[in-house]
């Protein structure tokens, strides 16, 4: 009788721990990063930020986007708040909650709207590559200025 009970317990254990086909489990958020072009922010006639998607066939990196931004709006009727200095390379460091941009510009070569252009473009690329929208952007200028320490957010996307 006792042995029968023990056998039943063992049987129950065995059957309850059987290895059948496993169910589908959630694997976390899906990856992202594909895009048909690079998001760039320029200024319209009223000086408001306007998104222009430069059709490059891919998203690319923040650094590439910065180069495109520095090279200007091209022959469209949009304007830019960044002086054309000829320099197009910008150092980009992505930290956990802040993106550091080493602009090749002095503070007086960029209007405040131009700074927003830089911030919004960098954030847009960051977000489209799967980054967090809550990331801040620190824009550093070549000459020492308090502006360099400010962590900014894009006024358009929040």
């Amino acid at each position, binding site marked *: 009788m006792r042995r029968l009970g*023990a056998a039943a317990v063992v049987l129950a*254990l065995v059957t309850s721990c059987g290895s059948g086909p496993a169910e*589908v*489990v959630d694997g976390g958020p899906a990856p992202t*990063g*594909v895009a048909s072009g690079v998001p760039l922010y320029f200024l319209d006639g009223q000086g408001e930020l306007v998104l222009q998607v430069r059709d490059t066939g*891919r998203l690319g990196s923040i650094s590439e986007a910065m180069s495109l931004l520095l090279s200007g709006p091209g022959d469209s009727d949009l304007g830019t708040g960044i002086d054309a200095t000829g320099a197009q390379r910008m150092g980009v460091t992505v930290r956990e909650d802040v993106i550091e941009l080493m602009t090749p510009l002095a503070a007086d070569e960029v209007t405040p709207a131009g700074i927003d252009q830089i911030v919004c473009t960098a954030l847009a690329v960051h977000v489209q*590559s799967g980054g967090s929208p809550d990331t801040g952007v620190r824009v550093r200028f070549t000459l020492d200025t308090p502006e360099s320490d400010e962590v900014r957010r894009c006024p358009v996307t929040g």
Partner: protein
Amino acid sequence: MRALRRPLPRGLRSRLLTAFVLVTVLGAVAAAWSGAGSAGTALVSSHQQRTTEAVAGSITAVAPQLTYPPDREALDRLRQAVGGDTLVTYGDLTSTGVFDTGLITDELRGAVRDGHRSAAQRITVDGRTWLLVGTPVMATAPDGTRSPSGIEVYTLRDLAAVEREVDGLVLTAVATAAAALPLSVLLALLAARGVLRPVRDLRDTAGALAAGDLGARAEPHGADELAELAVAVNEMAASLQESMAAMERMQADARRFVADVSHELRTPLSTLAAVVEVLESSAEGTDDDTRESARMAISETHRLIRLVEDLMEVSRLDAGTARLRAEPVDAAAAVRDCLRLRGWSERVEVAAPEGIVLRLDRRRLDVILANLVGNALRHGAPPVRVEVHRLPGGVRVTVTDHGPGLGGDVLPRVFDRFYKADESRTRTPGSGLGLAIARENARLHGGDLTASDTGSGARFDLVLPDRGEGEEDEEEGGR
């Protein structure tokens, strides 16, 4: 207490041992099973999570550099970035290495299509476990809203390493359980000893009681059920001893009464015998009726005397005061003397080899023989035969007759006192004590007297051992 050192009964100890081992094994197996199971599950699920995160990470790293909408080349790049056995699809475009698309279950495909999240599923292929990871690649707008890009990635990741780890866990658990076994055996033996000692005590006590030692008592240990049992056994033994003592007292009283009565009767009877003999001699010459009455008075008086003497003999044997007086006795001569003295020589066949000499009590042997032969002559029919056989260390005397024999209801009671096989024949010359006395005498010698039915008469076997030198006079009677 009697020293009983029989080999231990296997029952209780082995049962306790089995129960303990079973409980240990079951407990250990259950603990190991659930422990290893949950640890294994945790291991597998964390590995799954890491794997899917790694897949998502590698896709995220390369995705911004992919042209979109993707061409075949872009899908190949994505597949190489993910690595392993991977399938990348975009609409009808597919990039695959050796990936068997049939492996993708409908469930997983559905989860990848419907949700905006990665999914994983364990599958078994050819006895090997794999983790199938599927994920859509999302397109994110600058404001953070996500939508499926149409690219789907499926990749197979080997779970063998994790399975080995889980197997290792199970093995460790089993080893631990095995290590606990000797401890449980030890505990079981200790527990069994704790239970078995009082049980053994009780068994010894019961054995001693059964063997007649009514003073035997079990010693209760502790205050458990076994101790209560010991107390109950002790109480039972005490009341048994008490009633046995009362019974023995009553029996002794009865015996003493018989002894006293027969002793008191003997003296007046002797006088009476002398008187009736005088009466008989003075009745010579008177009429027949008077002579007949006198003869009858004499014979009845002698019968009474014999009865009283038998009663006294029985009393002595019962009281244990009978003494053996062993001396060298020739068995054949004893038989012939016995028959000759009683005038039975002509009526009894004797087959007795000469030269069987043993140390026996001559008088008691004579009593036995006289009772057996007398019984055969009275109740059996001729020929009555006495045979003497030498036995190693003793002698057997067999008395057979050819009478009606001993029936099935007579045989077990033939040695009872005052037992009469034929109820109608109340007036027989015997006292009714003869065979009882004969058997008591045989037993006093350390021998025995048995009765049997030959089919054509009764048969009595007397077996007497040789009483060696120095044993006489010391031997106590009784049983």
